[in-house]
């Protein structure tokens, strides 16, 4: 097998001007189950598909509250995400102490992106293996941002990251122009339908494997999961679309319920 001599650390440039380690870290995001983010004029929300490692285990949490006006949904290494979430919470608390006001979402996202870049340029470090969808609202309205292991960030009107997220993005691209005027219930419905597009064959949305976090103009980050998300999951059940319910197609990627073996599972 061809041995790539430029891909074992993040401080070696390849002749093509690429850093393979950063690109591999971006792959870790694609291994994690999907997260969907979207926003209206009044709300920003994120929906995630949770995995459990066995019948007896619980589902891995993928939405974290950061502050009263902010939360994140993640795809990739949860352990890395917790480090970033802790950093973000600390920054928000410090900001409240100094200014007695919530932090600008976009400014914190830039800080997170800058922090992520540090791990891509020094020996002995690695990039974070997680992508974030940051939702929140501040003086300039509701926002949705994506951050990447490379230290890139973007602001979106709607976005999907993680495994099979292309299908989710396709759904969102078809509908995102309606979102600005929609109420919370309709937004959640769209988020769940976009999330359903990312399911693998035979899988379905349940109250146990779905969670939604949202934030309104008045602040307050709310997470809907288990019994609180159940009515929304039931409501989209009859809607056409989603993956076929038959047996798995042969060339499908590994099903979401059985993540690849490894010391650091992606979620």
């Amino acid at each position: 097998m061809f041995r790539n001599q430029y891909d074992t650390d993040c401080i070696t440039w390849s002749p093509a001007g690429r850093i393979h380690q950063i690109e591999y870290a971006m792959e870790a995001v694609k291994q994690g189950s999907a997260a969907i983010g979207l926003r209206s004029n009044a709300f920003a929300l994120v929906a995630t598909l949770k995995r459990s490692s066995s019948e007896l285990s619980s589902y891995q949490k993928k939405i974290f509250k950061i502050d009263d006006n902010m939360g994140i949904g993640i795809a990739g290494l949860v352990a890395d995400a917790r480090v970033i979430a802790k950093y973000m919470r600390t920054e928000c608390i410090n900001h409240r102490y100094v200014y007695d006001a919530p932090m600008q979402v976009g400014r914190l996202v830039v800080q997170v992106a800058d922090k992520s870049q540090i791990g891509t340029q020094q020996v002995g470090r690695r990039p974070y293996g997680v992508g974030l969808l940051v939702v929140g609202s501040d003086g300039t309205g509701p926002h949705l941002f994506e951050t990447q292991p490379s230290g890139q960030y973007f602001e979106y009107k709607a976005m999907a990251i993680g495994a099979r997220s292309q299908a989710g993005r396709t759904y969102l691209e078809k509908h995102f122009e309606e979102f600005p005027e929609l109420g919370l219930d309709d937004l959640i419905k769209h988020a769940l339908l976009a999330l359903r597009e990312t399911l693998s064959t035979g899988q379905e949305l349940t109250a146990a494997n779905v969670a939604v976090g949202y934030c309104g103009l008045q602040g307050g980050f709310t997470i809907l999961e288990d019994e609180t998300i159940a009515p929304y999951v039931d409501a989209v059940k009859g809607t056409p679309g989603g993956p076929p319910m038959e047996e798995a197609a042969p060339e499908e990627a590994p099903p979401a319920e059985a993540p690849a073996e490894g010391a650091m599972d992606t979620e």
Partner: protein
Amino acid sequence: MQAHAPESAFTRTTNPLVTGGSVVALKYAGGVLVATDTLASYGSLARFENVCRMSTVGMNHDVLLAAGGDYSDYQQMLKMIDIRATQEFALDDGAALSASEMHHWLTRILYQRRSKMDPLWNQIVIAGFRDGQVYLGTSDLYGTMYTEDIIATGLGAHMALPLLRKGWRADMSEAEARKLLEDCMRVLFYRDTRASANINIGKVDASGCTVSAPIKLETFWEHPEFVRGGGHLGNGSW
């Protein structure tokens, strides 16, 4: 060791040198007026007679900062705010510190500096207007802060505040507020040996934040008691 702690404690500039006097401010219907005189004293010497002790600050110059106490510390504070405003200008994300945020930030700095025994030796007044809301607050060199409808610092806290309490109403017009403010500054000029009759008036309302050119207060010195003096009472007082 412990017995000598007070002597060995490390302190820095714990007394002011060139100082400004009182700041007087009040809300009225739709805005805030703030007044300072133009004098900076070196001890009891009227050292600089034409300095301005208030400034519009922040990225959009929509916050008014007025200060009494050490003048160089006030200048330092303006410099810190300007650096912060330039950072916000560079971010170019549509957000800028409000008067309330600016007030809290400066108060945290005041508190941290006093906790290091190296205070910024000022009493500050901050006024702003955003989203239809008027803001008026004050902090001192210890990092104490509060917001109020009427504020007076320095000797004004003793001599102007009673006048403000008596004359102030929430529905005052700008002209009424200006009259009350000028009366306060006049009384301070009569009674405070480190005050001047030249004053700046700053205004914050929906249209923005401005500082007037200095104006000279009308004074009247022909009161019989002023002319006769208090010497006949035998106790040196009026």
